[in-house]
């Protein structure tokens, strides 16, 4: 008998000795699983549980709840719940995110990426505010309040022009964002094909290099207060 088979037999015997296997009622214990069988782990998710967690919203509007709000109502909520960080007009306080403006700046040397100038979908606003804002007290707004602040943010960006426009699950899904067409699928495999190179240069590959910039002259390491923004 092989060693492992005898070990298995010893293990089975000790299970039996512990009363874990009662030879009459149970088939003999095996150290194996039935191939292809389900694990039999986990339990069915209840509808109430799915409802509690499944709050995500897709660009086609699937997932948007009932409820409504207008820019006018949203203005008041925004000033109370959001403006300490994002500013009265979404201009951003300190390094907190700017939420409005920047339209047409994406080609500029210093682009201003905001909800209005950059975001492709208005539905993302609802999904994101519902899960993450206000920062430090997330998931504390009602759906009506979320529709309202989203409407206010869209109105600050001139996407919604009428302060009494009713944002709800039907109107939000139909909103076209200014930069909706501004995105394309990863094309590195084609536009950067030349980075795949069978015989990279090994000697005399370039002219003599000159230092043209030094981190120590920028002086932002690590506790400096000035520097470029990163996300």
């Amino acid at each position: 008998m092989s060693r492992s088979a005898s070990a298995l037999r010893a293990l089975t015997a000790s299970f039996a000795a512990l009363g874990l296997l009662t030879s009459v009622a149970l088939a003999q214990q095996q150290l194996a699983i039935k191939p292809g069988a389900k694990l039999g782990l986990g339990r069915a998710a209840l509808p109430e549980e799915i409802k509690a967690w499944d709050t995500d919203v897709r660009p086609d509007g699937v997932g948007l709840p009932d409820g409504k709000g207008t820019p006018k109502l949203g203005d008041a909520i925004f000033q109370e719940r959001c403006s300490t960080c994002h500013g009265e007009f979404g201009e951003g306080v300190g390094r907190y995110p700017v939420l409005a403006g920047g339209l047409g700046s994406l080609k500029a040397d210093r682009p201003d990426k905001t909800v209005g100038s950059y975001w492709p979908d208005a539905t993302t606003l609802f999904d994101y505010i519902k899960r993450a804002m206000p920062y430090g007290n997330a998931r504390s707004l009602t759906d009506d309040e979320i529709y309202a602040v989203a409407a206010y943010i869209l109105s600050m960006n001139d996407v919604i022009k009428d302060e009494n426009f009713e944002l709800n699950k039907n109107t939000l899904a139909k909103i076209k964002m200014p930069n909706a067409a501004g995105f394309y699928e990863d094309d590195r495999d084609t536009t950067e094909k030349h980075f795949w190179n069978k015989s990279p240069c090994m000697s005399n590959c370039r002219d003599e290099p000159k230092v043209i910039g030094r981190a120590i002259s920028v002086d932002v390491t690590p506790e400096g207060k000035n520097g470029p923004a990163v996300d």
Partner: protein
Amino acid sequence: MSKQAPKDVLNRRGFLGAAGLLAAGAALPIGKAKAEAAAQPDPAITEVHDFNKLLGDGVDRRPYGMPSKYEKHVVRRDVGWLTASAESSVNFTPLHELDGIITPSGLCFERHHSGVAEINPADHRLMINGLVEKPLVFTMEDIKRMPRVNRIYFLECAANSGMEWRGAQLNGCQFTHGMVHNVMYTGVPLKVLLDEAGLKPNVKWLMLEGADAAGLNRSLPIDKALNDVLIAFAMNGEALRPEQGYPLRAVIPGWQGNMWVKWLRRIEAGDMPWQTREETSKYTDLMPDGRARKHTFVMDAKSVVTNPSPQAPLKHKGRNVLSGFAWSGRGTIKRVDVSIDGGRNWGTARLDGPILDKSLTRFYVDFDWNGQEMMIQSRAIDDTGYVQPSKPELRKIRGVNSIYHNNGIQTWLVRANGETENVEIS
């Protein structure tokens, strides 16, 4: 070492000859007089120290062992001005203090969007819903009864080196390259969990969601999910650290760190991407024409010399070890080249330790330094033939405003006194 004034790099002479020192066995003739200078006996040897004499701590003084008190400086560090608040911020792995390929758990960089969620595993649930035959809820105990695997993978934030697009900014590889770590994960292939719920035939994307106060959510293509994604509960042999997603996180090999959802609580199956804030407003790459690439998931091949680097200057002429990391989201590292003349001439480094798929790989060049200035660079080549590009090559296509995916070749200027700094070269 002599503290001579830094030479003007623009007027170096005879520098190129030093490139030969990368070629195997071509050590430069260096005076070896220095080593014999010590005439006084060394008190480290001649004196009796307390630790030679007195009893040290007993076994239970440190039930969870910590590094020596002489390693206190080896910590993650942040850059205050980068972000508005510490709860939505980042700190950096001290790459220049590491060796081998594994990042110790306590040194793995952190990036949170609403702080670290502190979750009792008894209260943690993972839900799978959406386009599945049977929506399911799992406890941590359920997950630990599933077949598990062990895999070593790097995790790199897509914004690693993002501060450096316009030129040299931060003086230290910890800050320029420290949003990467390399860990052995223990977890369950996501496919095992999805099979249990039963995917409907029209599923094309999944959405992964965290339990933290950001509820961070990302869309993941189903092909990747079924290929090599893990749902991990352990790192480097022990439970995940809270800041790395305890008790459960996603592991998305080779793909940008933001997708590796921490504190993972839900996976929804669907037929289109969700266009979440993290995959539209963020983690899209703005190109010079004002349009942006999306779904740039894979991390391009990249490398960095960690020693010498600004935080780890050269201290000795003569024998030295140049060292660094290379990695690729597309596969394994095939070769790493090193230059000491700013990319004019290259030699091939020695890879050592495990060379694994989508893992940090360690490289070394053993060399004798004659005290000349060097412009040190490294260039990674992966098994798909991708060669890490120079920063100018990268900027030619991607401009300077894409924030993410800066895998350009880094230059360190080593001065004659050994001081090393982050420079941008022509």
